[in-house]
């Protein structure tokens, strides 16, 4: 199946881990984190990504036990045919939610630049890219990720440097004013964000040419993604203060808008178009492949390519359901604790069953 044909290198795997970890999340995560945990949101992000690293290690161990199978394929082996297939279907269906939400976020963002252009057209342009890459294969996506992840990281760095004259790090104090409970509450939303990359890895991990190095990719990639997000969160709070950040639709976007270099150049929100589009591109494909490959493997299809165009059309149509930005972001916060969190909990569960049943196919 797909893991036989396409191989990805260690460097590509590393970039894919970061891509899943950052993606477009940096546009979204600040708002819920501030709403839940106030100025201590960065702590919940930090804990979330630490937990996600551990989850990644569990997945790597699980994956090494079944070196030629993806998550969907070894679920029936571990949990028994019926339960495994059932949970596999649930896993596939869960990821269907993600793509419409992401493309909706993007369309709402683009409305700022192109207020009268039909949103559907903007979304479908993005989906042309997605379909194009999906047809060209997972390898091509991995290769483009090598460039675009670097662009995203570099742009975020530039952004933090650009805003640095306007920040006041005092805004982060007092630390843990209301105790730890808001942080742990925020973890319910933040941990699924962090776990998304690991759940994606569950599908592409057997494609890695050197599977042994998957551990290294997780140990470096997830913390890098987490660290970038923590730094970005700190910068946002230091720039806007917690009260203002909670009211903004996208604090990061607002921050970029404010950057100006000595009244000479401003309008960085448009200059950073490369950042917006590449982040959406990366994330969109992560969650486009996930249900697609998952479904193809669940149905034991030879190839996932026939599913590409129907998948894209369904995603685009679903993205038009939320009436406005408020509803869209509400759905966004809803999906995390109720849909992705159970999926993330599935990995250690499966691992434990596999350890107890002493399942290991690596010697075959």
């Amino acid at each position, binding site marked *: 199946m797909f893991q036989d044909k396409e191989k990805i290198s260690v460097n590509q795997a590393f970039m894919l881990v970061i891509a899943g970890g950052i993606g477009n999340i940096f546009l979204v995560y600040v708002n819920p984190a501030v709403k839940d945990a106030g100025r201590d949101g960065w702590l919940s992000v930090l804990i979330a990504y630490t937990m996600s690293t551990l989850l990644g290690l569990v997945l790597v161990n699980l994956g090494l036990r079944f070196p030629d199978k993806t998550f969907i394929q070894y679920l029936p082996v571990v949990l028994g045919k019926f339960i495994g297939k059932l949970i596999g279907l649930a896993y596939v269906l869960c990821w269907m939610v993600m793509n419409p939400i992401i493309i909706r976020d993007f369309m709402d963002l683009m409305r700022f630049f192109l207020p009268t252009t039909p949103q559907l057209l903007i979304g479908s*342009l993005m989906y042309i890219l997605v379909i194009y890459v999906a047809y060209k294969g997972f390898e091509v996506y991995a*290769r*483009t990720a090598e460039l675009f992840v670097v662009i995203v990281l570099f742009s975020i760095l530039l952004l933090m440097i650009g805003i640095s004259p306007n920040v006041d790090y005092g805004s982060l104090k007092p630390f843990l004013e209301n105790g730890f409970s808001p942080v742990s509450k925020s973890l319910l939303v933040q941990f699924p964000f962090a776990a998304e990359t690991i759940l994606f890895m569950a599908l592409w991990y057997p494609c890695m040419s050197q599977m042994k190095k998957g551990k290294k990719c997780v140990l470096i990639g997830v913390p890098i993604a987490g660290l970038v997000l923590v730094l970005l969160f700190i910068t946002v709070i230091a720039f806007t203060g917690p009260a203002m950040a909670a009211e903004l639709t996208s604090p990061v976007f607002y921050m970029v808008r404010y950057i100006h270099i000595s009244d000479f150049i*401003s309008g960085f929100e448009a200059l950073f*178009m490369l950042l917006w589009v590449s982040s959406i591109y990366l994330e969109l494909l992560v969650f486009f492949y996930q249900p697609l490959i998952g479904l193809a493997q669940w149905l034991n299809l030879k190839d996932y390519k026939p599913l590409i165009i129907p998948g894209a059309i369904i995603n685009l149509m679903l993205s038009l359901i939320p009436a406005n930005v408020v509803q869209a972001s509400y759905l966004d916060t809803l999906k995390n604790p109720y849909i992705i969190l159970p999926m993330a909990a599935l990995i250690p569960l499966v691992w434990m069953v596999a350890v107890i049943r002493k399942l290991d196919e690596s010697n075959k």
Partner: protein
Amino acid sequence: MVKKIARKIKLKKLISESKKNSDYETEVSKNANSLPESIEDNFKIIQSTFEGSSDLNIRRFSIGANKKKAFIVNIEGLYDKRIINENVLAPLMEDLIEKTSSEEIDIEYIKSYILNASSLAIIYTIEKVTDNILDGSTILFLDGESSALSINAKSRKHRNIDTPMTENKIRGPHEGFIEVLSTNIALVRNIIKSPDLKVETFKIGRQTRTNICLLYIKSLAEDKVVEEVKKRLDSIDIDAILESGYIEEFIEDAPLSPFPTVGNTETPDKFSAKILEGRVGILVDGSPMALTVPYLFIESFQGSEDYYAGAIVSSQLRLIRFMAFHINLFLPALYVALHGFHPNIIPQKLLLTIQVTREGLPLPVIVEAAGMIIIWEILREAGVRMPRPIGEALSIVGALIIGQVAVNAGLVSPLMIIVVSLTGIVSLLTPPLMDAATVLRIPILIFASAFGLYGVIWCYFFMIIHLTSIRSFGMPYMSPAMPFNLSGMKDYIVRLFWWLMKTRPRYIGRKELQRAEDIRMPSPKK
């Protein structure tokens, strides 16, 4: 549905026909006719084969005291008259005049003892005879022999080795390839003096029977690539090959892509450098343009002079070329996007200047930009094709006068002239990508006018995805950047010093990576 099936059947027919055609070569060799013994029969065969060719030259004569009949045949203008007269006819007719025993005078004897020309071969079939005559060889027939002697005394009129027109450089060898294959191979041999350099010859083209040579270094070139090139060359079936461009079009990986997947060069030094990196070179008779495969995207930015001038300067030049390519593709589109969608990026003072210059212009910005780009392309093409003196005058008239008048007449804004002419000039920095940029510029412009910067970035993404998805003879086109390869990055956007590049680019040939045993940074003793 029915149509589809019909189309499929048609396709199958076409394929089987083309298979038949490819068998042409083998069929010929099977039905090869051997030469008759009688000299009169031979004479008749030659005459009937070349009937109506008035430039066929047949000289009949007799050898020795027994007056053994013989004749030589060749085509006027293709053979070297001096060699044939002094080294073939003279010994045959003068030195053998005393010989009485006709037994001794046979082809083998003449080849071994009489003729002192350097390149001789005995041939046995009529087809071979025709081929050799057409190639410019002189054939000697002897009575009573079922074979003939092919004397390779070609005299081909050609121009001298000259400085190539397309690749000017300040430092480095100035000689370029010419239209003669043997000379070109010799030029390469002069540079790479290694028995490892293999030269394999193919004949392609039913009418032109063009010689095509494959050059590679056996210990460096990847076997898979060599095999692939041979396979692709073998599958070419066409009536004529007039230039290496024909071959290029037939062996390309992504024929629909505007980006080149086969490299071409006119200079032996660049050609040799590519071969020394493990690539396969293709030389075509009659074309001074040599091809190299696999060709990667980054090679469009690598000039041969990069390696002759210092590493620091050439790295900087490469960065400039890289920038130039982006400007070339995106500048007009960026201008339209910033102007029409995101004027807040432009500083206020500059914005006002733009606003003043555009005040009262009749055309929308997109039409103006597209129009100016097309006019530029017309002027450029005219400048290249015109005879040189007119060309120069024309480019001055075109660039200066038309631009100036258009601005004065209030048709075009002066900023647009700057943008478009900058775009045009910048395209000269990366000649291999000029075609791609010319093709893509207008679509990008259209997307920019519809979606602003989003459209521009979208096009950029589309381009990147396209570039990463294509391969050239098995090598990913964007390597060593995507997929990433650290040792390859040493000769990417920057070129490091030679003593830092201890290995050959890993992504081209993997056989013998080490360039030399001991490359060191120079450290003069004090």
